[in-house]
């Protein structure tokens, strides 16, 4: 195995990791801040992909406009879902169970709504202009769209870090995560904060759906397919930990890339192996947020 192959394989892993992280980021954000496990997160990812398809193909829109539209659409849909439904079950005993059921019902409903609107045929998006080719250096071929996705992933990490730790709304959101009641007493509009954070999380899902669409197929049921993978990322990274999710995605992406290249017959088991080994030694994930550890 020569070094140029290793580089190529590394970038392959990075692409996979970035997309994994982007889907998982919204999931882990809303869990970290709101304590909500949004099982329907994948459905917002799917919604984003379909919205982007509609904007690009029917409105002859620019791809990047479509990505933003997908984020906006999924974000608004998420805020509606939170304000109209999820908000009603906060604070119930057995809230966790009801959260899962409610978001599960959202999966079923969104799935059929998507089918009603877009049908079951596969939809497709092309790579945006300027990103159809590859960067070729000697033996190394790196598709430019894959590099762009890695870039967007990094951008999301940096922006999220900046918002969460350097801006007032971000700090409020993090504080809300720690103590909903106290923040309410301090005059923070907790319900509004929750709705906004939920909207941002689902918008992240929608944007990812749109970004991934040129590399995948836009099909019904796509939401359920991504949720389990993101779940592994979120669990590994320590639920609610944004950075943890990024590192976990990186770990899974690269483990997969190396396993495919070296032991292809067993590659598919490796991501699960990583998960099981981690959970045996650290049931709360690699990078659990501090308040979780003592649960």
């Amino acid at each position: 195995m020569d070094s140029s192959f290793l580089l190529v394989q590394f970038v392959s892993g990075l692409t996979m990791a970035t997309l994994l992280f982007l889907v998982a980021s919204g999931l882990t954000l809303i869990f970290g801040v709101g304590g909500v496990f949004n099982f329907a997160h994948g459905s917002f990812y799917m919604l984003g992909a379909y919205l982007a398809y509609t904007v690009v193909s029917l409105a002859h829109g620019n791809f990047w406009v479509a990505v933003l539209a997908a984020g906006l659409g999924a974000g608004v849909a998420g805020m509606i879902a939170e304000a109209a439904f999820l908000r009603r079950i906060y604070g119930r005993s057995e809230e966790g169970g009801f959260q899962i059921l409610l978001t599960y019902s959202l999966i079923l409903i969104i799935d059929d709504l998507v089918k009603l609107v877009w049908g079951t045929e596969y939809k497709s998006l092309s790579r945006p202009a300027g990103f159809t080719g590859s960067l070729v250096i000697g033996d190394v071929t790196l598709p430019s769209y894959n590099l762009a996705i890695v870039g967007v992933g990094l951008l999301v990490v940096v922006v999220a870090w900046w918002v969460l730790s350097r801006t007032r709304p971000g700090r409020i959101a993090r504080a809300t995560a720690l103590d909903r009641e106290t923040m309410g007493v301090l005059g923070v509009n907790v319900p509004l904060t929750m709705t906004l954070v939920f909207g941002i999380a689902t918008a992240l899902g929608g944007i990812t759906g749109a970004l991934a669409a040129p590399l995948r197929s836009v099909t019904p049921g796509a939401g359920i397919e991504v949720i389990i993978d993101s779940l592994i990322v979120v669990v590994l990274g320590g639920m609610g930990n944004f950075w943890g999710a990024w590192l976990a995605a990186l770990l899974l992406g690269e483990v997969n890339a190396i396993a495919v290249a070296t032991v292809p017959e067993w590659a598919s088991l490796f991501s699960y192996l990583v998960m099981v080994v981690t959970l045996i030694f650290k049931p709360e994930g690699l990078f659990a947020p501090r308040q979780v550890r003592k649960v």
Partner: protein
Amino acid sequence: MEAASDKKALLFWGLFLVVFALVPISRNDYYLAMANRILVWGMFAVAFNMLFGVTGMLSFGQALFFGLGGYGVGLMVKYLGQAWFLAGLGAGVAAAAVVAYLLGYLVIRVSGVFFTILTLAFGQLAWQITFRWYRVTGGDDGIQGLVPTGILGDHIVYYYFCLILVACSVWFLKRLSASPQGLILRCVRQNPARVRFLGRRVRRNQRRIYVISSVFAALAGGLMAGVDNSIHTNMLNWTTSGEVILMSVLGGIHQFFGPFIGAAVIKVIEDVVGARTEYWSLIIGLVMMTMVLLFPRGLVGEWVSFKARMRSGGARKEGV
């Protein structure tokens, strides 16, 4: 007061057995299969609810044990022959006990939603293994031809076999929930910190009920193999775990028989809606959402509180 509720319970049991025992008279295999399915899933749901409604542990991975029961039968029959059907049922249940015991040490270190997601992760792991390891498990092709030998091969006899096993299991679980052990489990849900101050180990009690619940999940899975005469990796998928949660909530998680009623309603709705529209998922989704938002006590729970309200309303009128 206790005598009255005893009489009620007896009446309920009698009615339950009579209704289900009479199903074969219809001479309609569809109704028979449906009733059989309700029995088996009802037991699964009641056992699951010992974990969720009683002890407060929402496992999203009970499909693992349901599947283990099914594959106990499936693999035994596939590799050793049909005569091994019952042995397979036993093996699946025993395997579930061992796996639940060991897995219990892994997953019952965290609580709340962390427990839920961890069980989901292990459930999906088991599903993936079964799905991909097709040389051994048949993978997505499943395993067919699971017909018990001898008299059990007859659909009606098999139905009564299931009825008896389910009745015994549900009776056992009912006794369990009314026993000191059941009381401790309820206490674990309501106030685990205080349970420690009763000198009881919370985790150990949680593991105990996890094993018990999983054993009955496996029994349900094994019995299902004989109802359909085939099994499939779908049994292990998270949707199975989700369905049993839905049944419990629909019926009412704080009522012992709630999940059983929930199972019956879900199985019937699934069939009725599925027969009439391809948009079943929309309808099931809406039903689920309505239940969660407006009737969180479940069908049986709402009925019980409705009765209580009527009674107290009536009493108030009399008082005036």
